[in-house]
């Protein structure tokens, strides 16, 4: 059985997802025992990655590089860099439904490029009796769980929200159906946004599509069919937070929940960093730590 991680990375005019993917893959190599990685990207992002980091580093970070094609006809999404800066840019990360077909592994962890693997908890999933594992509980840097109700359900009276940030799956018939369903929801996104009453922003959101697909393949019930990853709560830093430094495997953040209310955090467990620019600012330090 082959096991490994799969990361999608498609640069847009503002955000260097390629460099984030390099950080993510090198941290996987550094902290995990099972650490094969596959990158799914497009030619222009790959060329940029090689120019930025050298071909040698890219091949050290990734065991498989899968070049694909993506639709460039996507809507812009607003990305925040702390409270004080925002920019709109195309959101190309919409082909996760192809992951099952693209993955070179029998067991795969699909992982966001902006997820920093700082502990070894993901070593515990391989050979699982589960077909799929995904988190539905999140905490922010202040260990707050209730983020206005948004973290629990896709709308006030909606179904449970699962987070597509980290998804473990095996190549089974059930998972094949699941990814097929995600593709179908993507093709009919407006319809499902009305049916499931989730906020239909102009861009496609993977978390919503996965949540609806999981609900559908579980016979439209909320029975406990989908198990959580080993650590049940997915920690994340919001787009208002700033990753200010990275020292010896510790990520240092400043969070600002309300204006002027600054908190410093040291994190040495896995964390989803939503402020993409802040990863870019410390990428060289992460790469330097993780590649030695």
């Amino acid at each position, binding site marked *: 059985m082959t096991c490994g991680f799969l990361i999608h990375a498609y640069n847009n005019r503002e955000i260097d997802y390629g460099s984030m993917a390099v950080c993510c893959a090198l941290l996987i190599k550094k902290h995990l025992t099972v650490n094969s990685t596959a990158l799914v990207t497009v030619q222009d992002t790959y060329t940029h990655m090689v120019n930025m980091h050298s071909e040698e580093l890219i091949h050290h970070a990734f065991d498989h590089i899968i070049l694909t094609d993506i639709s460039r006809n996507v809507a812009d999404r607003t990305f925040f860099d702390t409270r004080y800066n925002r920019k709109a840019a195309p959101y190309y990360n919409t082909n996760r439904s192809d992951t099952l077909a693209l993955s070179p592994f029998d067991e795969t962890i699909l992982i966001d490029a902006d997820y920093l693997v700082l502990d070894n908890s993901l070593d515990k999933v391989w050979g699982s009796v*589960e077909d799929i594992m995904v988190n539905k509980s999140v905490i922010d840097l202040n260990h707050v769980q209730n983020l206005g109700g948004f973290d629990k359900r896709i709308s006030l009276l909606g179904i449970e929200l699962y987070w597509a940030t980290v998804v473990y799956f095996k190549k089974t018939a059930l998972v094949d159906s699941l990814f097929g369903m995600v593709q179908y929801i993507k093709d009919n996104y407006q319809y499902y946004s009305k049916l499931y009453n989730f906020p239909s922003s102009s861009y496609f959101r993977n978390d919503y599509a996965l949540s609806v697909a999981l609900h559908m393949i579980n016979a439209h019930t909320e029975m406990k069919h989908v198990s959580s990853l080993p650590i049940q709560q997915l920690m994340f830093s919001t787009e208002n937070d700033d990753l200010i430094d990275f020292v010896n495997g510790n990520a240092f953040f400043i969070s600002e929940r309300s204006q002027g209310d600054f908190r410093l955090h040291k994190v*040495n*467990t896995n964390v989803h960093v939503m402020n993409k620019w802040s990863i870019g600012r410390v990428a060289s330090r992460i790469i330097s730590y993780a590649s030695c």
Partner: protein
Amino acid sequence: MDERLQKALDASNFRLNLLNTKENIKLKVETMTTIAVNGGIFKSSRELVTFTKLIIDKGHNSVVLLDENENPIEILDLLKFHNDLLDCYFSATNYYNTEYSKLKKARSSADQFSELSADKNT
């Protein structure tokens, strides 16, 4: 602002930082006490350690246990499983103790985040 109020707010902020750091340490401890066996995921708790010891003392060396996701998992070598639970429990609690001792000594945010200060000074 009144000096007393300012002092109280500073103390409150510092305390909140301490509590957040403690929660981060506890999260790390949770990752350290998680073990995988035969496709199941278990957390090394005092209850599980005691329960496995009880079964071993009854003369069994294999057992079916429910894991964190309530799947039945067959443990074929119960003694090894028990020892693994103990190892990761002690590693995790020792780590917690070390980090907690550092935290107790911290008198300011600069003490609390000393790695960051040290890095900035180099």
